[in-house]
């Protein structure tokens, strides 16, 4: 989805808060532990978790601290998986418990193909309302494969609880001047791109 989470290259942002003021909240370790617990118990996979964050209302997403996003996503998944109802969560919390928006359809991976290190590839001009790990800033852009990773679950399917298919990802090197002509610092930008997102140039 072309959501608010897809921040790469968005403009108007400012100085990095670095070095940071330490401000760990006491509830954060609990949320972190519950997040992992849900993964270990098989309630959801990592892509379902990421997509549950992406499905947050955009203004909520952007205003929420990091672990509030985790909290919202895990709660959403527990409700969607039937572990608890939204009403019960709110009652337990003693007030409104905002959840993410409903999930839509995912999509299966594309026909298998393969690319070699050193080969030029292009990111398909594709759009999906569901989970994807293709950042918008590489859509339609060409780059060169610099490394191949072992097969991972295809996120656009896995994020929707569809039967997992596994496919290689390629570390693809893009030139910033191709991604944002005349409007970027010169750099080589590498993205881990799933095979299904790619086509021959």
């Amino acid at each position, binding site marked *: 989805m072309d959501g608010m989470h897809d921040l790469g290259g968005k403009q108007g942002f400012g100085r990095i808060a670095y070095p940071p003021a330490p401000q760990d909240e006491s509830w954060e370790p609990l949320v972190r532990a519950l997040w992992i617990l849900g993964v270990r118990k098989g309630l959801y996979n990592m892509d379902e978790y990421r997509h549950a964050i992406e499905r947050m209302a955009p203004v909520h997403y952007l205003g929420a601290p990091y672990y509030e996003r985790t909290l919202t996503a895990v709660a959403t998944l527990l409700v969607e998986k039937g572990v608890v109802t939204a009403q019960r969560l709110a009652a337990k919390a003693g007030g409104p418990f905002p959840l993410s928006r409903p999930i839509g359809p995912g999509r299966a991976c594309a026909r298998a193909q393969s690319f070699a290190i050193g080969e030029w590839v292009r990111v398909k001009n594709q759009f999906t309302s569901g989970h994807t790990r293709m950042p918008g800033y590489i859509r339609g852009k060409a780059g060169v494969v610099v490394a191949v990773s072992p097969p991972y679950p295809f996120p656009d399917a896995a994020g929707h609880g569809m039967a997992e298919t596994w496919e290689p*990802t390629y570390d693809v090197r893009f030139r910033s001047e191709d991604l944002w002509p005349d409007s970027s610092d010169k*750099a080589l930008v590498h993205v881990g791109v799933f095979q299904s997102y790619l086509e021959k140039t």
Partner: protein
Amino acid sequence: MNDIPAPPAARAAALKEAFAEKGLLPDGFVEDFTRHGEENWISRNGARMVARAWTDGAFRARLLADATAAALEMGFELPKHHRRLVALENSPGIHNVIVCTQCSCTAFTIIGGAPDWYKDLDYRARVVRQARSVLEEMGLALPAATEIRVWDTSADSRYMVLPLQPERTKGWDAEALAAIVTQDAMIGVAEVR
């Protein structure tokens, strides 16, 4: 979003109860998990790998060829979904820096939990497009001729930067070296001094 949400601590407690009511929460899990993370998933792991790579040519070669194996060899953990660890080698003309633009993925068992600024929107939005400016703002002014390589953690590979060893530390042992390797250097927003 018109109603003010319950405080996050209250929501977190409600979530914990929801797990517990279904028998999904083992006794002491939160405490054990938290302590395990605090004790084991620390940036000192990555620092020790870096220090060893600086002092042991054969390990350096293994690290660059297969950082997953190198991490396991040193007894470190990788979560199941971190299926490949990659060490990115800085050299006098090449500087690497990592980010996750779509969420905040990191090799947290190796370089430690991501710092807040890494998870913030500003870093995620800007470092891919304004790498040199962002690094400079953060205090790392790179020579104009240095090639900057940004790595966006969009799949299940995880990255760590192998920084340059400072001249002044040549001859130090691995223990002393590990003590000066920072998490920021392994993310690539600082040099080791």
